[in-house]
Every structure is written in C-alpha cells, then in structure tokens.
C-alpha cells in the first residue's frame, strides 16, 4: 500500500513536470486547426512534420542553433578554465585573515543582482568594446554569468580533496601548476563535469542578454530566434513549438552524457 502511494505521488509529480513538454511536443506535431481545437485534442490528431520541415527550411534556424552551440560551449570552457584556478587558489592558498571567504562571497554576490539591473551598463560597455551583435560579446557575458557558480562549486570540490595528496606531489617534485593540472584536475573531474553541464544549460537557455545585446540575425541565439516567431500579426505556434523541441535536445544530450558525473558530483565528496 505504501509503495503504491509512493508511486502514485511520483507519477503525479512527473505528470506535473512533463505536461508542458508533452503539450509542446504535441503542438509541434499538430496542424493549425488541431492546435486550437476545443476541447483540446490530447491524443487523437493526425501528426504532421510540416512545422519541422518549415523551421529547417528556414535558413536562420540552423544559424541560430549554431550560434547557441558556439556561445554555450565557448563560454562554458572559458568559465571552467578561469574558475577552477580561482577556486583552487581560494581553497588552498593562505589568505590573510578571512579573505578567502570574503572574496568568495563577493564573487557569489555578483549572482545576487537581478540580471536586468546590469543590462544597460552591460550594453554600454559592449558598445564601447564594439562587441554588440557579436558572438564574442555574448560569450563574454555568459562567462560572467557562470563564473561565480563555477568558483563556488569547484572550491567545494577542491576542499574535499585530501591536502596530503597535493603535498605528496609537491614533495615528489611537482610545481603548483603541475599539482593543479596533473593531480587536482583529474580528481575533481566528476565535479567539473557536473558544473560544466550546469553552465552549458544556463548559457544555452540565456534569453535576456542575448535579446538585448544581439539584434542582428548573425549573432542571434536560439532562444531569441524562437521568440521571433511571435510576430506583430500572428504567433506561429507550430513553428515555435517545433523549434522549442529541437532546442531541448542538446540539453538532454548534455545532461544524459554527464549524468553519471552529475549524481556523483552533486552528492559531495568527489573521490571518497
């Protein structure tokens, strides 16, 4: 009885979470008439791939997709490359008084600000740097967005490593940088993978900055491109849903590829 209740609760939660996705997928497969049928057609409709053909025929979609891929992968790699050494320094070096915590908190506090507050200064800065409407500009912004998270996550993982292992490596003749690259990096890999997936998802889904900072088609990312289906005269539900479904796929791939690390990484103690 208890088990049945448990499964019932789990199913309910799952239905709640997956209903919008189901709705998205079905709309992407329905003709315009079926989309607006009342009462809604949950299961009985004739599926069509018209909308998918439509978005792939439309050149810009592939372009947005590629932009999104470039921005999220590059920004994630840069955020990890900058964040891991920072986290290592905060976790391991001797700081005067409580500076390590102070600096960490300051880094985190950058995430406490609602992003919209920073959008105008960000716009002005990127304009000065001539990085508006460029992928480089978006990459830079996403790095800034993800860096605090990387530093915090990785600081925790580094602190969980036994210090003795690093000291042993130094006595074996390894430099600090060598310790970071050849000892710490392989040992925090599960944590790094979990962090990377999170960064990829944040950058992939990022809408606000991409909307304001890239107004030309050449630099637009997928979320902005999808939103462009809301036009002055109509909302192209079918095309928008089809694009939405395609946009979900990379996130699913990132997450399932790193799932093994994800659970281990988020459940503390990377190598205990």
């Amino acid at each position, binding site marked *: 009885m208890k088990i049945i209740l448990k499964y019932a609760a789990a199913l309910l939660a799952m239905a709640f979470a997956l209903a919008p996705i189901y709705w998205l997928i079905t709309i992407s497969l329905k003709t315009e008439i079926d989309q607006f049928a009342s009462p809604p057609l949950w299961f009985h409709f004739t599926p069509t791939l018209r909308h998918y053909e439509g978005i792939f025929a439309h050149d810009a979609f592939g372009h947005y997709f590629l932009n999104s891929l470039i921005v999220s992968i590059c920004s994630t790699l840069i955020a990890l490359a900058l964040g891991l050494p920072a986290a290592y320094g905060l976790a391991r070096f001797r700081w005067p008084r409580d500076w390590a915590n102070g600096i960490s908190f300051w880094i985190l506090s950058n995430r406490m600000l609602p992003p919209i507050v920073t959008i105008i200064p960000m716009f002005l800065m990127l304009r000065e740097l001539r990085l508006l409407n460029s992928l480089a500009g978006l990459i830079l912004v996403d790095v800034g967005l993800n860096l605090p998270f990387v530093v915090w996550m990785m600081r925790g993982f580094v602190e969980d490593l*036994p210090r*003795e*292992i690093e*000291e*042993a*490596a*130094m*006595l*074996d*003749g*390894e*430099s600090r940088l*060598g310790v970071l690259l050849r*000892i710490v990096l*392989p*040992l925090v890999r599960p944590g790094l993978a979990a962090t990377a997936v999170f960064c990829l998802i944040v950058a992939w889904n990022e809408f606000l900055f991409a909307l304001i900072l890239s107004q030309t088609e050449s630099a637009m990312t997928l979320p902005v491109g999808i939103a462009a289906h809301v036009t002055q005269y109509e909302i192209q539900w079918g095309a928008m849903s089809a694009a939405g479904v395609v946009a979900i796929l990379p996130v699913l791939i990132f997450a399932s590829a790193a799932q093994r690390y994800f659970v281990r990484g988020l459940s503390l103690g990377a*190598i205990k």
Partner: protein
Amino acid sequence: MSLLVDNISKRFGSKDALRGVTLETRDGEFVVLLGPSGCGKSTLLRIIAGLEEPDQGVVTLHGRDITRLDPSRRDVAMVFQGYALYPHMTVAQNIGYPLRVRRRPSSEISSEVEKIAGRLGLGHLLRNEPKQLSGGERQRVALARAIIRRPRAFLMDEPLSNLDSRLRIDMRAELKHLQHELAVVTLYVTHDQVEAMTLASRIAILKDGILQQYASPNEIYHRPANLFVAGFVGSPAMNLLPGTVESGVFRRAGLSIESPPPGGRDLTLGIRPEDVDFSLTEQPGWTPARVWVTEDLGNETLIRLSIEGAFVTLRAPAGTRAEIDSLAWFRIRPDRVHWFDSQTTEAIR
C-alpha cells in the same frame, strides 16, 4: 652532518608550535621525533619538507640552506600518515611519479619501478589502483614512491599508525631494515614510544614545541633529562614520587630513602617498575603497602601498590599472585633511583 635544524621557531596565531628547536643528524641516521599530540613534531617535519615556513631558524641539508626552498626542490621524500597515494593512478604510476615529474625516459621509469616494486613485494600489484590495496600494501607503495628517486632525506609522519597492530610490528622491522640498507638520513614522527625505541638511532623528545632531550633510546630510557621524559618513555611509566629532603633523608608519606643527592630540598624520586622488588611476606627494611591491582600479562605480572595516596607500579615474575587489598612489601633498589628537582623538573646527576 647531513640534516641540520637550527633554532627553529614557529607560531600559529597565538600558539607557539616550536620554540628554538635545534637538531643535527649524522649521515644515514634514523632519528625519531617523539612527543604527545600537539607537541610540534609534525610541524617540525613539515618545516623540513617545506610545507610550512619557520618564523625563525635555518634548515640545511648536506650544507645547503633549504629553509626558503620550494618543497619540490629540496630533494627530500615524505611518507604521510594517510599514505597520500594518487587515487587516479595505478600502483606503477604512483611509484614512478617522482621520476615522471623529472622527465626521465619511460623505459628507465618502468625498469626502476619494477626493481623497487620487486624489492618491496609489490610486483604483482603494479596494475592495481590504490583503492584495491590493503593498508599494508598502500603503505609499501608510499614507501616505494619515496625511495625510487633516492632522496637525500626521508621524512615520515606517523606512517604506521593506520595499520593494525600485528602488521605495524612487521612493517616496523621492515622499515628499519630498509632504512639501514638505503643509509639515508630519516626523520620519523610518532607518538608511539615503542616505535621510537625500536627504530631510532636517536630520539628527539618534544613537548610544547620545546626539545626536551635528544639522545639514543638507551640514554633516554636510563638517563632521562627531566620529569617529562622520565614519565613519557617506558611502559608502564616510571614511578614518580615527590617528597622533601630533611637532614639527609628523602621523605614522603609512607616512604623514606637515605642519602639523596645534595642540593635541593624538594625532590622527586623516579624508579622504573622493573627496579622495584616485591614480596608477599615482610622483609627487613622493606616498605609495606596495599595491593591495589594486579595485571597478569603472561610473561610477567604488573602490580600496582598503593601507599598513602600514591601508587607504585612494579614488574613481578609471571604467575605472581597477590590479592587485591592484601598487604605486601616492596623495596626500591637504591642504585637505580633517578632524582629530579621538583621545581625545575630537571634531572639531578
């Protein structure tokens, strides 16, 4: 003189970890740093390794000042309490790591690894990962990694303390033999006095960051420099009985000894448990006492007597029977007595 530690001091916050410690060692010597936890022995080892910087003092190795040198450039190897093996490498990679860092050709590395592994009985484990090994095997891998590059000094921080007691005794003997073969100066930290006595050519006893005595195990045991050393080394510990000298006789409640050394009035008498004679029947000139407890160890019996609020522990032959609370007699062998000044705690010789 191979390794010299000269007047080292170190503070952590408001606590003195080491105060003016000076130690010199001879080539190939096995020096044990012994003391209770928090006495500064590990800190001293870490300063020699370069993992801590001293506030004051100099460390030299074969005449070279290494005080401010990076750990990687000191040419010392260290074995840690937790072994500190690299979990993401195989046993062979762990052992060969110091050579790999030095960019030796891989053919040379693998032949060296095989040689060392064979010597330490690890030959069949080279492809395993550290987590598949037992405690004793991990310990051996850590040792192999330390000796493969033939450092100028070995530092060992309680390397045996995570092993079970039988294995510890085996490894202790193995370690001593290995150190003898390699003839490299070794500094070994432990709080276990049996390890210290069995391994060391000289023992340095530390307390509260101050060096108490630096001498051979024999000297430490038979001529302790002060009350702390006397009480710390030896199991069961030396009996220490404070008393006063009046007109040439040392007195304390229930006990008096003639002809104490000249000098102070407040003395502490020290006597090892094996230097106290025991009898169940009255003997002329012996001191009466109550049996407080007896502990039969098989090869000997430890008897603890109670005299006027103090205890005297003594070793009696195996099979000695004595009822708790029964009356017994003991005699302190006068030629084996250690005298200490109760105020300064220093030995009087």
